[in-house]
């Protein structure tokens, strides 16, 4: 459903991403891995519109991208969207979230710290609520249709709080929650924006093993119950190998491998790339490969 083609991003003299191409298939959990500084987050920022890529094409469609000619035809035109296919590199960030329905989380958690957990989830439903309140006019006079919409939003938020086990802390400031809860709340917030593709930037960073296990369950549930495809950046190899259907490995901005977890595990170039990094990630990968 997402096709990244020949994507390059240059910062001054640094080529952070270099001619990268890969696909995210519908209903898959796709992992983007690679050593620190490989350009993973940059790829994310290009997909979600926070950076404009130097060159390359990013096509996205909720229905899937079966027909390459349709993408080419759209590329030749000057429009951003046709027949449900969006060209993300032509869209500003908030429109990617709204129209192409790509939601994301951040490596350094970006919750609205001074707002309650519930408010965080309500803000994520900004678009439907804005429409229901007719850009605040119906809301100002307290129209019943708006109240119904707000109750529905509250219901949805309550439902997500229950799923991530935070119902009892709904009215506490998001900034006061423990780290692991904040990570889950950020995922729930992204889900409240009603995406078809959810991009997660290191969702397991800083989690203990039990929290990691909860997280994998949550991600599976999102995929199976809501049919949302996932693209994630992750360093925790146990999480990656456990849940991914498809792994893309980056090093120095280039793709060095692309395949199923089993294929990646056996790929010597992946192991070589990780050997340059003197930390436990190396051990993790080596262990995985040997086992």
């Amino acid at each position, binding site marked *: 459903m997402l096709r990244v083609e020949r994507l390059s991003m240059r910062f001054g003299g640094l080529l952070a991403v270099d001619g990268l191409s890969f696909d995210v298939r519908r209903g898959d959990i796709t992992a983007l891995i690679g050593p620190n500084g490989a350009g993973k987050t940059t790829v994310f920022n290009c997909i979600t519109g926070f950076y404009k890529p130097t060159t390359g094409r990013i096509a996205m469609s909720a229905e899937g991208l079966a027909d390459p000619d349709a993408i080419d035809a759209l590329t030749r035109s000057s429009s951003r969207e046709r027949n449900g296919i969006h060209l993300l590199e032509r869209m500003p960030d908030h429109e990617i979230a*709204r129209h192409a329905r790509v939601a994301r989380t951040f490596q350094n958690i*970006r919750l609205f710290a001074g707002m309650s957990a519930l408010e965080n989830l309500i*803000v994520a439903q*900004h*678009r439907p609520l804005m429409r229901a309140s007719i850009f605040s006019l119906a809301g100002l006079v307290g129209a019943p249709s708006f109240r119904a919409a707000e109750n529905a939003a509250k219901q949805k938020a309550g439902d997500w709080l229950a799923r991530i086990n935070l119902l009892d802390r*709904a009215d506490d*400031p998001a900034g006061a929650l423990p780290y692991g809860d904040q990570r889950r709340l950020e995922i729930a917030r992204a889900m409240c*924006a009603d995406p078809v593709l959810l991009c997660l930037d290191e969702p397991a960073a800083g989690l203990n093993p039990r929290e990691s296990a909860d997280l994998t369950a949550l991600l599976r549930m999102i995929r199976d119950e809501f049919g949302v495809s996932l693209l994630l950046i992750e360093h925790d190899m146990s999480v990656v190998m456990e849940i991914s259907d498809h792994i893309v490995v980056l090093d120095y901005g280039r793709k060095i491998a692309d395949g199923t977890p089993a294929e990646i595990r056996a790929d010597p170039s992946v192991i070589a790339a990780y050997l340059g990094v003197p930390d436990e990630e190396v051990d993790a990968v080596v262990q995985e490969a040997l086992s």
Partner: protein
Amino acid sequence: MAETPVAEHRPASAALAEAARVGLIAGALAFPVLALRAEPDFSNRLVLQPRWSWMLGAAVAGFAGRLLLSLLPPRRPKTAQAAQAKRASRRAAQAFAAFGLGLIFIWPLLVLLALGPGGALKWIDNYGVQILIYVMLGWGLNIVVGLAGLLDLGYVAFYAVGAYSYALLATNYGASFWICLPVAGCLAAFWGVLLGFPVLRLRGDYLAIVTLAFGEIIRIVLINFSALTNGDAGIASIPRATFFGLPFVPGPKGFDAFFGLPFSPIHRVVFLYYLILALALVTNLATLRLRRLPIGRAWEALREDEIACRSLGIDTTKTKLTAFALGAMFGGFAGAFFAARQGFVSPSSFNFTESATILAIVVLGGRGSQIGVAAAAIAIVGGSELLRELDFLKHVFGEDFDPTQYRMLLVGLAMVMMMNWRPRGFVSTREPSIFLGARKQIGGDFVKEGRG
């Protein structure tokens, strides 16, 4: 030094030495500007007149002030007691709000009863109408600064747009106040959008300086575009606000005659009082309502984290623009009221000090808290008006002592002291706009102030 936590255990000699040091510095600071006054002589050449006693006074004041400060108990660290005190202060704030609102409603009547029509005029006008204008301006700016977290140093520009809109429409076309009021608000909002559109991409202090520049540009244009605005002299004899068509004038056509009352200027002032009170309350209710709507939540989310907002599909430019335009609109309403009350507008009413005062009200109030902003407006505007009442000091310092000269001096000093005393303002907690369970406050430590 002041922040040493064990100040009270220090020997008195150390406190004295520190006080002496401060006294010495104060004396040195006072040396050229305070101790030697330059006055022109007969041939218009400046001659210095020494006033060494002033310098001595400054040194003594520094010494005594520092000594007093070291006698104060040091700040207590946060404890459970402090949390309890916080809850108590919250209850006190609620009680204060209820009591304050009641008092505001009956204030003119109370003053009338106490002082009679003659004496009450000043108290209703200076301490009622004047303060309420700033309450309204504070609430209007609060949308921009407190909710959306955008630092606007040129808010007075919109106040000016509102005032001049009314002044020009009323004097040139004879339009009535009630027609001009919405027009003034819309014009101010229009200017808000016009200014906001290019500059709202800027962040933090860049936005601050550009809004300040815009405020100054408006003022300079008002001064120099004489054909329209009559320049520095301003626009005089603007029609006053009428009681739904009935002017407050003596004679058979006036308000007093219509209701069979003897003519008295107090009627007009009381009317203006309730008019600005109504306008301020409308501002307040609209803000409270908007906070509970998606747009208001988006403002607050913007203040907390702009990037996260964008990732959720919120168009931050439009969201900022609405905050800017709405804040400007309320400023415009207040401006129209100001022109209708004074009957005279000139560029000097719209200088940077006004913007600074309104911003100070919002910040001292606690950015986002409606009650806090109202309390801060009363403290700052009421306090500075009270300083006009210092005539009795002439008995202490002699006849040539002019206390009004010291008013702004003290206002400035008070701003510094209040900020050092309460950097987060009167009310730093925020109440979530929607609840699942019990109503809870969010501590000020979590609430961000925005980078815009």
